[in-house]
């Protein structure tokens, strides 16, 4: 991990406190309904719950079950539901209560909403006529620490609700989460942010702070950076090539753990593995570019063998000590190593194939803006051959964003192709993507960028810069090409990029692209604000802000270790590539970043 390698890097705050707070509150809430009870837990709360509490604390509920919409056997006359505040779930519970009423059964019901109760849910209870029959409570479980340096709100619906449906109900949740952090770890000296949602979160947080009392303790975070996911859609659309990112793409990391299938474990069982800094092997390779991983692993295997080999030529005493002290550690390491080797093998199988190379090549061309025609042809073929539903869409979106919308002709033909491949229900998918601005058709007046890219090929670099500026001020949408130029997101091609010794954050995408979000963070922290970046923020639709923390005493405070810890909050989720990039940035600057995602 970065902070062990880099002596100067500050220690991180102890996030286990957050777990303890959440656990204590949950126990308290459950005890409010005394006696044994059936406890139902929303399916997607199971993993987070697993991370903070184990079954022993739930032992006073004899029967615990994950909530699925099926028939249940009930053991007790007290039912307790631990759910996310979703209308559907609440409706399901109402139906259950009503069914009990019809059958003349008397039971006590308690719904615990987490992280908070929504008025709409209560309205449903009221409309279904069961408001008086159930008691409700809130479990303020806002933040789950996933790792030493990753916190998560665990709200998968945040993105959809906020950016697609225009439902801002999670804004207050994010605000409350910040407030929680602030009350536990002290106030922040500076807050930066970009994006509409970020601004709203900040407002909501500030309002909450005004209500509560001010704490004047030594803060453990210096700065907070809030960034909307829709500021940078490009990064999540690119295929990930760092180890952790690949594991996520292939096996889905859920709540900090992953389930490796039989092809990885080389047995007939699946194994669930926690992926965090506790895993010695993983922590060393998680941020590495995939091409380095295998070499590293084999070196590791050799070391392990040497360690095992030490046994030979030991006398009884030494052997005893070896077994007592080292063997267990070695065994553990052995197990993990074989798992990760298995995982990277199956990655190799899938990812070194021609297909993947071509996919990467297309992505890089799109990012650079070369050979767009060929890319479109590739995408078309990709769709026609039904290679992958998601990957095709990903490429389409990447194309649309980098090219500032598709030409009408292309848009229609690609869309028709896609629908033929995967069915007409994707009309809705396209409608949604369009709403998000991820996949758009160029309007008649918007062909500027195409022209620009054509011009770009004809004239030299300097003029391109000027032209780009001129064009981008005409186009109203975010303009990736211009941004990329201004922030130097795409390194000059032609230069060799040694992935073993990363030069900059671009290594997370094989040296082809620096994640926009991370670049923004780097720039803003460097400048301590947005000054000098007006052009960039204008292209990102503005909404940026930088505020000095509430307490005036923060200025007088000396620069301590904690002053260098930065909390980055991605509103709407972030990718493991971005996390790796930020870790890299942290190592470079001796700063530490704590990431938070939705």
């Amino acid at each position, binding site marked *: 991990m970065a902070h062990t390698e880099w002596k100067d890097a500050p220690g991180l705050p102890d996030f286990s406190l957050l777990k303890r707070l959440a656990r204590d509150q949950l126990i308290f809430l459950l005890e409010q309904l005394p006696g044994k009870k059936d406890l139902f837990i929303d399916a997607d709360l199971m993993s987070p719950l697993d991370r903070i509490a184990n079954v022993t604390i739930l032992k006073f509920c004899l029967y615990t079950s994950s909530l699925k919409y099926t028939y249940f056997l009930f053991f007790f006359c007290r039912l307790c539901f631990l759910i996310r505040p979703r209308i559907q779930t609440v409706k399901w519970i109402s139906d259950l209560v009503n069914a009990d009423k019809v059958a003349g059964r008397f039971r006590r019901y308690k719904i615990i909403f987490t992280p908070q109760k929504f008025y709409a849910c209560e309205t449903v209870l009221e409309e279904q006529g069961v408001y008086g029959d159930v008691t409700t409570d809130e479990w303020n479980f806002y933040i789950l620490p996933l790792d030493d340096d990753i916190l998560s709100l665990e709200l998968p619906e945040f993105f959809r609700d906020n950016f697609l449906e225009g439902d801002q*109900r999670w804004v207050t949740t994010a605000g409350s989460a910040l407030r929680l952090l602030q009350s536990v770890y002290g106030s922040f000296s500076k807050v930066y942010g970009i994006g509409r949602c970020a601004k709203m979160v900040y407002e909501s947080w500030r309002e909450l702070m005004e209500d509560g009392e001010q704490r004047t303790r030594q803060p453990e975070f210096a700065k907070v950076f809030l960034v909307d996911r829709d500021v940078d859609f490009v990064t999540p659309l690119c295929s990930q090539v760092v180890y952790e990112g690949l594991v996520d793409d292939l096996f889905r990391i859920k709540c900090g753990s992953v389930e490796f299938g039989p092809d990885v474990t080389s047995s007939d069982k699946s194994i669930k593995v926690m992926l965090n800094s506790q895993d010695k092997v993983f922590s060393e390779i998680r941020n590495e570019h995939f091409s380095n991983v295998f070499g590293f692993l084999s070196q590791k295997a050799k070391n392990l063998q040497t360690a095992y080999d030490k046994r030979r030529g030991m006398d009884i005493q030494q052997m005893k000590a070896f077994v007592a002290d080292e063997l267990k550690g070695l065994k553990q390491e052995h197990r993990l190593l074989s798992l990760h080797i298995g995982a990277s093998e199956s990655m190799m199988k899938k990812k070194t194939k021609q297909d993947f190379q071509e996919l990467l090549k297309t992505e890089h061309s799109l990012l650079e803006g070369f050979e767009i025609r060929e890319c479109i042809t590739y995408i078309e073929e990709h769709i026609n051959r039904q290679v992958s539903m998601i990957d095709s869409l990903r490429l389409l979106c990447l194309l649309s964003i980098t090219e500032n919308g598709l030409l009408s002709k292309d848009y229609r033909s690609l869309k028709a192709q896609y629908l033929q491949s995967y*069915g007409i229900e994707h009309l809705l998918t396209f409608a949604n993507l369009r709403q998000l601005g991820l996949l758009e058709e160029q309007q008649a007046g918007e062909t500027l960028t195409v022209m620009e890219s054509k011009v770009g090929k004809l004239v030299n670099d300097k003029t391109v810069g000027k032209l780009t500026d001129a064009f981008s001020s005409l186009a109203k949408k975010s303009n990736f090409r211009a941004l990329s130029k201004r922030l130097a997101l795409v390194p000059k091609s032609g230069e060799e990029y040694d992935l073993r010794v990363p030069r900059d954050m671009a290594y997370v995408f094989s040296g082809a692209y620096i994640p926009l979000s991370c670049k923004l963070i780097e720039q803003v922290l460097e400048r301590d604000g947005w000054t000098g970046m007006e052009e960039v923020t204008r292209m990102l639709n503005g909404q940026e802000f930088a505020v000095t923390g509430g307490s005036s005493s923060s200025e007088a405070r000396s620069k301590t270790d904690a002053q260098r810890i930065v909390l980055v909050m991605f509103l709407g989720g972030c990718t493991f590539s971005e996390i790796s990039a930020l870790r890299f940035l942290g190592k470079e600057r001796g700063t530490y970043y704590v990431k938070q995602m939705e």
Partner: protein
Amino acid sequence: AHLDLKKIELYEMGWNLKDGLRECLVAAAPYGGPIALLKGHYRRSPSARPQLEIYSSSGLPLASFPWKSGVVKQLGWTVSDDLLCVQEDGTVLVYDLWGGFKRHFSMGNEVSQSQVLETKIFHSPYGTGVAILTGALRFTLATNIDDIKLRRLPEVPGLQEAPSCWAVLTQDRQSKVLVANGSQLFILDNTACTPVTPPGLSPQASSIVHMCVSFSYKYLALLTDSGHVWMGTSNLKEKLSEVDTKIKTPPKQMAWCRRPKSQQPSAVVMWDGLLIVVGECKETIQYHLDDDSVLVPELDGVRIISGTHHELLQEVPGACEEIFKIASMAPGALLLEAHKEYEKESQKADEYLREIKEQSLLSEAVRQCVEAAGHEHEPETQKTLLRAASFGKCFLSNFPPEQFVSMCRDLRVLNAVRDYTVGIPLTHTQFKQMTVQVLIDRLVYRKLYPLAIEVCRYLKTPEYQGVSRVLKHWACYKVQQKEESDEVIAKAVSVKLADAAGISYSEIATKAYESGRTELAIKLLEFEPRSGEQVPLLLKMKKSPLALSKAIESGDTDLVYTVVMYLKNELNRGDFFMMLRNQPVALSLYKQFCKHQEQDTLKDLFNQDDDHEELGNFYVKASYKDQRLEARVALLQSAVDEYYKAKNDFSAKTTEDEMRLLRFQRKLEEEKGEQLVGFSLHDTMTTLLSVGLHKHAEQLYKDFRVPDKRFWWLKLKALAEKEDWEELEKFGKTKKSPVGYLPFVEVCIKHHNKYEAKKYVSKVTPEQKVKAHLAVGDMEGAAEAAIERRNESEISTVLSRCSATTDHLLMERLNRAKATAVKK
């Protein structure tokens, strides 16, 4: 055990009562609270209405009005300075300090039927309570008048007429009644009536005629018909003393006079013109009273209010006694003496000081002086004592200053509120017990806002609890002033409250609304920074559009939902939709809700907005939820119509295609028995090809204008899957492949048929030749092709695939070719 008492005159009363307190029903609130008089109460002539008057402790009038309601049995004050008037029928009327009617409540049917015989108003940690003895000789109790829970206590056995006396006790977190029926004593609690006997009560007594409980409910005093006063703990476990007053007539009033932590008990008994204080010793102390008086028990003494004077009777505090006792040698007394000499510039000062210091009692002396100052009412005496303390402090290092400093502050505040114009005669002990918070409240109730703010600032009370709170009360009062215009008030309020922290404008606005000033309320709400507070009141005032926009401004979706749901029930559907239409955030929230709860409403919403695009999407979605084909097609048709209306030809056409496809799939399903319905076009064709229905697949290919490339890919894959190599070859020859021939090679290799694959290698375009050769594992062919094309990267690719052992020669050739290619 000698009892030292002092009687201090607090005020000469400012009122002008003709007949003194005679024929008045009097109630004075503890902690130097206000005094209420019901004049002419005992006259009972229906023509003359009694007059209710309220005064401060110094006799300054606060309110006066004729009593128009029923017969009042008892007056009393609540902890928050509200006046309670208990009527004969059990109704309790609540007035504020200024005689404004606040509310009323009833003590229950049973009470109103059997009428009130006697009433006692008492204070406990739970608030102010009312206890009633009804005409039916039963007790009814409410412990907290702000949260009324009536309790009817059990019957007292053998009670034939009104008990000789009774009192309310608070014990074990419960309010109980102690009743004396002749010589018998009972304790009534929620469930039982328990007879009790006071230990060591003198046997001469045949009846208990009076009783009183101490301020803290810890002690009890009983007066018997033999004239003995028995004093003990209120749990009746211990007797403290018994004294004979030698007076056998029943007294007018009795009260405890003991100060907290005092060594001995002391009670005051009052008859007409006579006041007797009893303590531990046999001797009693007697005072003569000129006038009709009322005793007001306090925490640390008794106040005596007469028609002309207001006095405080209390045990002399220890510190004062030590210092002021004649010829006292206590350290405090010596220090005071030393300071006096010092002021006279006499050397004796040094002698006194030395004497104290020799016994190393100087800090004790300072402490005594400070404490004594706290107990003195006369500012001059306070000053003398504090000066002495300050003088003593000079000779001490490390003496903690807090006590001295806070005493100076406290006394300054106390002197200010004791002032005649304010009239709150608090002692220091009482002040500490009641806390600054409550004192500020009391000042606020009396509308002494500037003084309250002054006190807050002076005592450095946190703004949130201090100044802001006072200002809020002031504003609430201000908005009720009918004579001023909305603008003036709103301005005045905002100017004064501008920089105060933690002000809730919504509370002030609520007050304004309650006094019928909606416009003012809206103006005031503008100042409220927290939208969460604005919205409920706006809804209450029926300003729903404003409420909605405020809720949206707040960014708090719950709040928006609250308003939306309220509007939904309040408005008719059309108006409701219209309102949402102007508020996109609210609309999208409501749509979210409808998606789960009311699908039909969602449709109506889109309809109203003429959002045909969304309607189309809506139908498409609906069509996937329906299982029956006819319904699906019908829904899709609706979608088509909507898409056309939305001028979205593309979607319309696609949807039409889908309908066609569905029909086609159904037809085939019926004919061939293949599961097809619901598949995408691509999947349908794959299925058809895989079961050998080439004709039908061709038909789809033509009907739906499937691009050649796709069809070729499809067919290619399907044939290879079936390993129908012959058909594949034929297909390859039908016309020039639009996807090239590399896919042919690859697809064959994928199904491990190298032989077939080789057939197509020659057809592959030159650019892909190398790839094709490599795919079939023909190293030489690949090498040939690469060398021929002189392409460096291709040569490298081939090289990387060669193995050093078998392809030695080939590698050499390639390396040579590479070298030349690089040169070029």
